[in-house]
């Protein structure tokens, strides 16, 4: 299918932030760009050194797409990161429907906040834990870091073993929220 200029320029998207803040963006390529219904003038440039920056209200913002996978983006603006999923009106409707029907899960996973080595495990499967209670000790960059429970509940599974080397975001412990 060959797209006409009209079709591209009339597109509408919804950017949903990780905190569930929504930006409705109409006509992202045209002079008639509207963000949340407001006419907005934003320009994106590449400078001679290859940096991307945004010009908005006569101010320069260093801009970078750090990660992207399908419609999920991690964007840096002046070094601060923002996570967005970009939806079209149709996919957005579908997402809202799915969110509504999804049952509230009580399953919690504790992930490694940084790469490191498990030097001690302080709980067993079946242990009742309180929010903030230490679960295990992760050594990273020679520091002993206590990894504590994000919820009050019961430990259902310990995924790692002592002396395991883990990557960032590896699941360490699974819990059942009370």
């Amino acid at each position, binding site marked *: 299918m060959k797209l006409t200029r009209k079709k591209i320029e009339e597109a509408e998207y919804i*950017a949903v932030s990780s905190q569930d803040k929504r930006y409705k963006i109409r006509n992202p*390529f045209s002079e008639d760009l509207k963000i949340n219904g407001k006419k907005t003038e934003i320009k994106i440039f590449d400078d001679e050194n290859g940096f991307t920056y945004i010009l908005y209200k006569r101010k320069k913002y260093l801009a*970078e797409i750090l990660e992207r996978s399908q419609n999920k983006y991690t*964007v840096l603006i002046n*070094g601060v990161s923002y996570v967005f999923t970009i939806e079209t009106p149709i996919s957005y409707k579908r997402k809202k429907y799915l969110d509504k029907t999804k049952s509230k899960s009580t399953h919690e996973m504790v992930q490694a906040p940084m790469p490191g080595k498990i030097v001690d495990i302080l709980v067993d499967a079946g242990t009742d834990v309180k929010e903030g209670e230490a679960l295990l000790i992760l050594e990273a960059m020679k520091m002993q870091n206590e990894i504590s429970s994000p919820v009050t509940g019961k430990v259902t599974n310990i995924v790692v073993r002592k002396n395991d080397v883990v990557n960032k975001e590896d699941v360490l412990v699974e819990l059942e929220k009370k």
Partner: protein
Amino acid sequence: MMKIKSILIANRGEIAIRISQTAKKMGIKTYGIKTSKEPNAFYLKHLDGVIDFCDNLDDIPEFLDVERIVNIAKDYKIDAIHPGYGFLAESPYFAQRCDEEGIIFIGPSAEAIYKMGNKTIAKQIAKKHKVPLLEGSQGNLKNPEEAHLIADKIGYPVILKAAAGGGGRGMRIIEKASQIEKNFKLATTEAEKAFNDPSVFIEKYVSNPRHIEFQIIGDKKGNFIHLGERECSVQRKHQKLLEESPSPALDETLREKMGAAAVRIAKATKYYSAGTVEFLLDDSKNFYFMEMNTRIQVEHPVTEMVTGLDLLELQIQIAEGKPLSIKQKDVKLNGWAIEYRINAEDVQGGFSPYLGIIEKLQYPRSKNIRIDSGISESSVVTPYYDSMLAKLIVHGETREKAISNSVNALNKFWIQGIKTTIPFCKAVLSNKKFKDGDFNTSFIEKEMDKLFYQGNDDEMLAAYLATFDFAAALETDKTTLIDFEKGKNISPWVLNKRLRSL
């Protein structure tokens, strides 16, 4: 006296480059060590000779391999070794091995490193020379029960510290008796891991003190001076993030008093080379000796900027046996300098290390800016070493001016490809308490409601950039098949330019 003609730099990153710059200025040939962990590192390009340790297969990391480093220096007939900071910088054994093999160790004597490196001995020396100390255990603790006894006597909160420690490792704050058992275990394990020495001691914990340190320097002829203080209170989990000189908390009288105390400690250990005496300063401006660091420190450039001295040059001259060329009265603090540590860390993700590749790099430029950097474009941030990439040091005639110069500099310090602590530094500079000079070690925890600087429109612009790219990619898929077939990769911005011209 012996003129040093060649130096082996037993370190990496920005400090290896920093040492090589002074060496070059002094006409000294520099050698460095290449490791398989970062064989294309930026520091290697600053050396006259690169020695390949890439074949290292044993458990000892390259920069900690005392025998190999000493032997290589002998093989290459290198006159002296500079250890930088970290690694072997505070190993008395390393300094001693250099001595035994007739290699000049650029730093203090093995004896001074040993004495001051052991906090228990250091405190005994401080006490003997009437330098104020916090109440606590006289020596190392034998068991948690002993910790209980002392804590009950001096009152909670108390702090457990590794005798061989530094950099916040092996430190545990204890609020009540029930926490002793667990923390004693954690502190000793951490101390054992980090310093090969599980000994810990206990002392009264001063809540929210300032961390003030004095740069001292001594020669082998028995001359000692101090070069003023550095304010290092902006810390997170005992890790310094920015430092300044002078400190907004000190006046001339207090500076003289603390400086004299620092010099007394240096004299007591016959200390030569550059060293740092750390103090805690409480609300009522009482100061207490903490420890001495027997190395050149990360934050030495702020002292250099306000004194106009080259500390590395002084270290090398002293190692050669030259007497100090300056006296205490010659030391003047001129203006204000602030150093920002630019680390590869995800501030929003709890300052966790951020690994990746430096895709683009652009430094601010100005006569009041100095950048000590260990990276260049295409540098890889590896998990093997600490996360510090570079240091930005900014000078101003006054503290206010140094802060406004810093804002400009940080806004022009651009890195692409990884997350860094730059947004954190900007957030500190926008904080009123920081601007007023009214802060202590609890500053980050208590005074900063946001750990990164964010403008009002930033999130909206982020949403737009992501949407723009998503939409452009969507359209690229559909409309530019032909271009892809030709093997051309079209960036969304190019597409945008084309769409505009349609």
